[in-house]
């Protein structure tokens, strides 16, 4: 399913302080992969929300859980980034992890909404033997347009 190894695989402890370094890495990485500034921000946000949920729900805010973040660059059938987030925490039925109705104004229940909104794929799975896996995928907007690989839409070309 992922024939190539991940370009980067990160293992972090379930500590909120580590969210900022992971975001910084992801922003630098996805800029070079051809995502524009807004998409890059959205990717970092999606991963941040996912990790925050693992810390709060998967590990109930214990600081010694482990979380793995794997980043794959895929070219087929279309150019995209795939990020897998895995934990050994509490399992939840994927069908139960859903976004709430946003009409009601209350704190909480926004993370899954945000992740779904800013990515192309957002899929939760149970891992064997324990923990959860979340798969996020996103294609750069520049990737589809005008032909094969000339990346006319990437930001570095837009900057004169």
């Amino acid at each position, binding site marked *: 399913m992922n024939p190539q190894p991940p370009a980067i695989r990160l293992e972090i402890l379930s500590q*909120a302080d580590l969210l900022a370094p992971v*975001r910084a890495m992801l922003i630098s990485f996805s800029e070079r992969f051809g995502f524009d500034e807004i998409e890059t*921000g959205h990717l970092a*946000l999606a991963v941040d929300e996912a990790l*925050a949920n693992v810390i709060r729900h998967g590990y109930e805010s214990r600081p010694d859980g482990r979380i793995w973040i794997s980043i794959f660059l895929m070219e087929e059938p279309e150019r995209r980034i795939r990020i897998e987030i895995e934990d050994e925490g509490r399992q939840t039925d994927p069908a139960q992890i859903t976004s709430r109705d946003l*009409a009601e*104004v209350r704190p909480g229940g926004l993370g899954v909404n945000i992740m779904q909104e800013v990515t192309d794929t957002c899929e939760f799975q149970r891992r064997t033997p324990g923990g959860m896996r979340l798969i996020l995928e996103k294609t750069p907007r520049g990737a589809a347009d005008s032909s094969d690989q000339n990346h006319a839409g990437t930001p570095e070309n837009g900057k004169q």
Partner: protein
Amino acid sequence: MNNGQEMEIQVENRDDSVVVTPMGEVDLARSPSLRSRLKQVLGESPNRLVVDLSQVPYMDSSGVATLVEALQQCRAHDCSLFLAGLQDRVRSVFEIARLDTVFNITADTTSALDA
């Protein structure tokens, strides 16, 4: 880690309004300190609370949730809440969460104080 959780937050009183200015990214590590500061400020029953977000380049749903909670407390205590000076990335999070029409959002602190 060191003091990563501690976030610098400026608080300024102007007549019966209070301007709260968090400095830096608001994520799961930082939102608890914003939350407790807002609670403290609201305890002094201001008429108007302005949260100046011009120094916040990044906010996730934990930050948004903190502000929604502040909004509920404001509504319960007849205080008007304004969010001022949102950077594009932060505004985009409010839009995704469909909260951009729920909050009073102004361009800057001055317009919030004049509103």
